[in-house]
């Protein structure tokens, strides 16, 4: 069975990856990358956060946006899952709620590429009823 991929195959692609990273301007300066965190607690997962995260990783690469997409725990906005936090280089974090694949696409095209705000932003000063 030669089809099975092994770690030896990974070593082969390693050099290509290294070269690709080297060619990127900002690879060694994470603060210049777009940083996205996807809320992945029970409520996020149950409402499709994994699909959104996969979409973001794949599409940002295809559209040549240097970004780091990671997962995080609960941001406390269970009513608006899936939620994502986007930090554009040098800017304050913005949290978007109810992000499905379609809205993720809009966030990439409008907010990440052009800095235009789109619907569904959860204000940072939002407090849960309990805290009031």
């Amino acid at each position, binding site marked *: 069975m030669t089809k*099975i991929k092994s*770690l030896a*195959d*990974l070593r082969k692609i390693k050099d290509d990856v290294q070269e*690709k*990273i080297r060619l990127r301007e900002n690879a060694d300066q994470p603060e210049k990358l777009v940083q996205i965190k996807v809320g992945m607690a029970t409520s996020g*997962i149950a409402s499709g956060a*994994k699909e959104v995260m996969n979409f973001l990783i794949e599409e940002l690469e295809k559209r040549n946006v240097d970004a780091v997409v990671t*997962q995080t725990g609960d941001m406390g906005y*269970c009513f608006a899952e899936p939620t994502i936090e986007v930090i554009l280089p040098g800017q304050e974090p913005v949290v978007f709620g109810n992000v499905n694949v379609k809205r993720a696409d809009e966030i990439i095209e409008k907010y990440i590429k052009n800095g235009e705000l789109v619907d569904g932003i959860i204000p940072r000063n939002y407090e849960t009823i309990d805290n009031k």
Partner: protein
Amino acid sequence: MKELSLHILDIVNNSITAGASLIQITIREEEEANSYFLIVTDNGKGIPMEMVDKVIDPFVTSRSTRKVGLGLPLLKQNAERTGGYFHLESVVGEGTTVTCRFEFRNFDRPAIGDISGVIAMLTCSFTDIDFIYTHFTSHGEYVFDSREVKAALDGVSITDPSVRKFLIEMIDENLTEIKINR
């Protein structure tokens, strides 16, 4: 949760919150014995004795952001409705093990779903944590060890999308080889 892999993605977050550095995920398919096991073990801080009985209560959580914790109760419910069980063992300072048995031939047993995507997602998101995923079937076993992956990459960033893509394909093909129940 409709898929077992989503349950895994969910409860592994508990291990991460508990400060685990090594998380082992094992799936054991025993078709002849009509059993399907999911075992998640971590080396996190553990759960105090008085909390162990409470973790399956949906209205108990260690979080302060909200008052419900549904991850484990949902998994327990899914295991029990197939005629299986849910068991949690924890030693403070050593770690926690969650064991679930599902009945293999049961309509309610959740399908495994996108397990390769979940394992790759965890490995690439939590680069400081190591994951060992072992899957046994009657056709053999497959072991994925993130420490081996990191060694093979030799310093190249594991978060690169092409590495993630590779890992998904690698896990997928190896799981197909041992004919896992999809």
